[in-house]
């Protein structure tokens, strides 16, 4: 399969990248790992005349904790995140999701920035980031701005990023004491699969280790974007952690889901599976939180 022709730019800084993006507008596409973009180009779905490679831009790398936040560089690969010892407590949700993406070969190239900007409803790194209440950091000709991720995802493949903007980082809150995460992905295969349904759950336990102080549940593949399940959250906060609360949260999450029937599965089956996966992800998060 051949790639269409394009000019390749390798800016050395964010400022240079913005110049190129500004110059070529919607004729330009950003390429990091290329594991989604190049597939679409080979399938003739996209044919940008200019590709902007991010390899030379060091400031887009790295994981840094400061000021009560963890700043995630958009060029970090799924592999790097999956194996990161710095993503503990609730932040482990990102490592867990990243570890289920594609295959080892894909994970060694696919980046978190690419996953967020490609914004598919079942994206394995988007779900955990949503559950972690992440913020997207954008740089553009008008300056820098911050956007909560739930305002960033607008539809399948659609984000609030303007063509001239570059995602320069993701911010997640530093994991609280007594927090833990779970991630469940259901597919027809165990690898190289887009989820039929996936769920990310983050729990923070109270000082007594029994009551749920905070909870977030994110659902994938059951709406036009990854979504939070506010009903599930309401069924958890202030309750005693355990099977009863998780069962109720599962039912509430299934009600929060808006699945459709497609070639991967029926809406009814997806709704059923949201309930099951939510319970499992919550159990996993509870185990992890008790260990913290």
């Amino acid at each position: 399969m051949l790639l269409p022709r394009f000019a390749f730019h390798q800016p050395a800084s964010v400022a240079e990248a913005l110049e190129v993006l500004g110059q070529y507008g919607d004729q330009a596409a950003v390429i990091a790992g290329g594991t989604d973009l190049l597939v679409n180009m080979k399938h003739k779905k996209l044919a940008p005349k200019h590709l902007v490679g991010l390899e030379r831009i060091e400031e887009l790398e790295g994981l840094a904790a400061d000021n009560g936040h963890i700043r995630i560089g958009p060029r970090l690969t799924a592999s790097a995140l999956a194996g990161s010892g710095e993503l503990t407590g609730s932040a482990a949700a990102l490592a867990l999701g990243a570890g289920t993406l594609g295959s080892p070969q894909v994970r060694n190239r696919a980046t978190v920035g690419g996953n967020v900007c490609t914004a598919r409803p079942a994206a394995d790194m988007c779900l955990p980031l949503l559950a972690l209440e992440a913020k997207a950091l954008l740089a553009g000709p008008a300056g820098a701005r911050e956007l909560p991720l739930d305002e960033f995802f607008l539809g399948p493949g659609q984000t609030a990023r303007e063509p001239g903007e570059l995602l320069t980082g993701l911010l997640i809150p530093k994991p609280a004491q007594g927090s833990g995460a779970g991630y469940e992905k259901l597919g027809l295969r165990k690898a190289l699969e887009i989820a039929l349904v996936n769920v990310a759950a983050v729990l923070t336990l109270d000082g007594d280790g029994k009551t749920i102080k905070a909870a977030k549940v994110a659902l994938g593949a059951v709406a036009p974007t990854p979504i939070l399940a506010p009903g599930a959250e309401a069924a958890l906060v202030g309750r005693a952690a355990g099977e009863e609360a998780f069962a109720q949260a599962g039912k509430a999450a299934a009600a929060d889901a808006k699945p459709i029937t497609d070639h991967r599965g029926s809406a009814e089956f997806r709704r059923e599976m949201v309930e099951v996966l939510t319970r499992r992800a919550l159990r996993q998060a509870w185990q992890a939180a008790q260990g913290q």
Partner: protein
Amino acid sequence: MEKTQIVLTVNGKDYDLLIAPNRTLAQALREELELTGTKQGCEVGDCGSCTVLLDGEPVNSCLVLAVQAQGREITTIEGVADGNKLHPIQEAMVEHGAIQCGFCSPGMILSAKSLLEKNPNPGQDEIRQALSGNLCRCTGYQKIVEAVQDAAGKMGRG
């Protein structure tokens, strides 16, 4: 579309290439360097037959632009044996009947090599996880997994 001059470091050797930006690493290796051990199967990152190691890590070379691979250490299947002496993984694959048509084998061997260099004593599940990006239509995977386990043992004793 202009061609650019790049240097690709493959199996320890530097190669000067004049190449268009829309050429993938898989195409460059096979067509410019005539290293045809790397295969083009699905060409969209779903089968792993194009697997090469980039700085020791397995990637699908069909989804890496040749120009992006500059400055990286590329290892292809041609770089695994030591002259005529097969790598323990290659020997084990032959002994265990883990090669039928051979199309998936270069990718399997490279993924396994990367695994054993990071984890010298993997369990079956870990081997299957490490090979989960390499599809085989012939063998049913069992013999490949056994070959990798066997190679791990031999490499550990070496």
